[in-house]
């Protein structure tokens, strides 16, 4: 990887965030950032790499943006204000050669401000995800469209609309004040986790992108336990990615080969979890990360897992969490106890409820009821790999039923 490629990977998000903060305009900031990298491609090989590539890029991008505004004769007042801010910040006049701008000032990292802007609840969730991937992830519109299975013009329009709304409605570029932070941080974490789960289903590049975002978030909010909790959760899931599929078929956690797990990532995930716990984190991501950590321990402590699902259920009020608790209780106290918990759940349209019941009924030797439950799960399942898994389970039952 060349210095420029590395700078693009490491600095692009920062440079763009800084420019959006400076200009208050996403499109102009994107263009100026591209131009700054183009300038770097031309000059660095000739003149050498500047001491601080990031600052060089920000300074250059700012100047390019101001030049462009001048050319386009955008309100003289605005140009004057930006030019004066730029020279204040970098202690150089705008006519000075880029090389002379070996910036004395370190530009603050404004990626967090950008992330909170992109994940503002006044934008539709789809738009939040797309905008985050576009700006901080650096994905192209085409790549985002492919990941979300929509046509490129549709995605392009979604991005244009979101950027227009940010400007028109004055969605602020900042980390929200304390009284808004818990709710708004939850939205940011949800977007990052959504991107990860999209990727976890197969798009490895998206999962990697989400991990990058989560790492940045944990780094930018070092005192926020949920940021570490989310990173821990994602690392602990990601560590098992090689073991989750065998020949294109899903392998259940119980049947996964732990030798395929990424020990380094598990250790990194546990480090993050420890950090979150040291910060007294008890939020939903921290609890889920603690559960994920127990799931990759052998032997598994099912009683502890059940207790944590209980805690998570109280935090989220989600019947899906309660279903997971039922599975853990079945392991700890026997299938009968798990089944009793399943029966109280209002999840009739959820195939996992039926496949879980089926599995517990099978263990109790109630094969006929188990087959009926597998049948119901098969009616509801959409994913092909999951369908094959369920069909396999059902077929394993059938011979007994024939007798």
């Amino acid at each position: 990887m060349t210095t420029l490629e590395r700078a693009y990977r490491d600095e692009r998000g920062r440079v763009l965030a800084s420019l959006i903060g400076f200009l208050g305009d996403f499109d102009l900031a994107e263009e100026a950032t591209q131009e700054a990298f183009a300038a770097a491609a031309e000059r660095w090989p000739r003149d050498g790499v500047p001491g601080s590539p990031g600052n060089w890029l920000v300074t250059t991008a700012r100047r390019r943006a101001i030049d462009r505004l001048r050319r386009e004769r955008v309100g003289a007042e605005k140009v004057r204000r930006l030019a004066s801010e730029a020279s204040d910040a970098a202690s150089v006049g705008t006519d000075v050669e880029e090389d002379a701008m070996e910036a004395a000032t370190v530009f603050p990292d404004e990626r967090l401000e950008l992330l909170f802007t992109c994940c503002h609840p006044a934008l539709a969730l789809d738009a939040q995800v797309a905008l985050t991937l576009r700006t901080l992830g650096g994905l192209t519109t085409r790549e985002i469209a492919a990941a979300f299975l929509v046509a490129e013009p549709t995605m392009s329009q979604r991005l244009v609309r979101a950027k227009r709304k940010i400007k028109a409605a004055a969605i602020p570029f900042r980390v929200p004040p304390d009284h808004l932070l818990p709710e708004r941080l939850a939205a940011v974490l949800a977007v990052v986790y959504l991107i990860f789960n999209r990727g976890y289903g197969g798009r490895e590049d998206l999962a990697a992108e989400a991990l990058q975002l989560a790492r940045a978030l944990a780094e930018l909010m070092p005192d926020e336990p949920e940021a570490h909790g989310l990173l821990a959760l994602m690392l602990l899931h990601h560590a098992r990615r090689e073991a989750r599929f065998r020949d294109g078929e899903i392998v259940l956690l119980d049947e996964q080969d732990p030798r395929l797990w990424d020990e380094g990532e598990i250790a990194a995930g546990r480090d993050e979890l420890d950090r979150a716990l040291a910060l007294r984190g008890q939020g939903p991501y921290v609890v889920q990360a603690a559960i994920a950590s127990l799931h990759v321990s052998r032997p598994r402590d099912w009683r502890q897992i059940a207790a944590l699902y209980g805690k998570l259920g109280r935090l989220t009020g989600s019947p899906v969490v309660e279903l997971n608790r039922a599975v853990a209780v079945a392991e700890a106290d026997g299938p009968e106890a798990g089944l009793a918990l399943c029966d109280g759940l209002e999840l009739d349209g959820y195939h996992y409820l039926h496949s879980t019941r089926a599995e517990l009924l099978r263990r109790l030797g109630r094969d006929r009821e188990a087959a009926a439950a597998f049948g119901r799960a098969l009616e509801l399942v959409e994913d092909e790999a999951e369908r094959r898994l369920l069909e396999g389970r059902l077929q394993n039952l059938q011979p007994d039923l024939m007798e």
Partner: protein
Amino acid sequence: MKYMLLIHQGTTPLPGTPEWDELSAEEQGAVYAAYQEINQDPRIVSGERMQEPETATTVRVADGQTLTTDGPFAETKEALGGYFFLEADDLDAAIETAAKVPAARFGGAVEVRPLVAG
């Protein structure tokens, strides 16, 4: 940044209706207090007070013919019940003010609409 806040009453109980009388004195007081707070906010320019949506007439023109119908354009419960203008720093500040409008928590909603500058 200037915003228009459009108040959709929804099922919000209005003074003088049986639903209003069912509210406790404390709840009624809270509604009055909220409106007082809004009226005293120096960033707010109040709109005129509107009569009930039932008193509205909706006008359309088709093929040069003026067609009038009785009632508001939207369903009565979604109809506009009032509006005001707000000068706020950004959308977060406008949302905070919108959330204080009683209709927002009584089954109605407040639409926050940025105005064209100039």
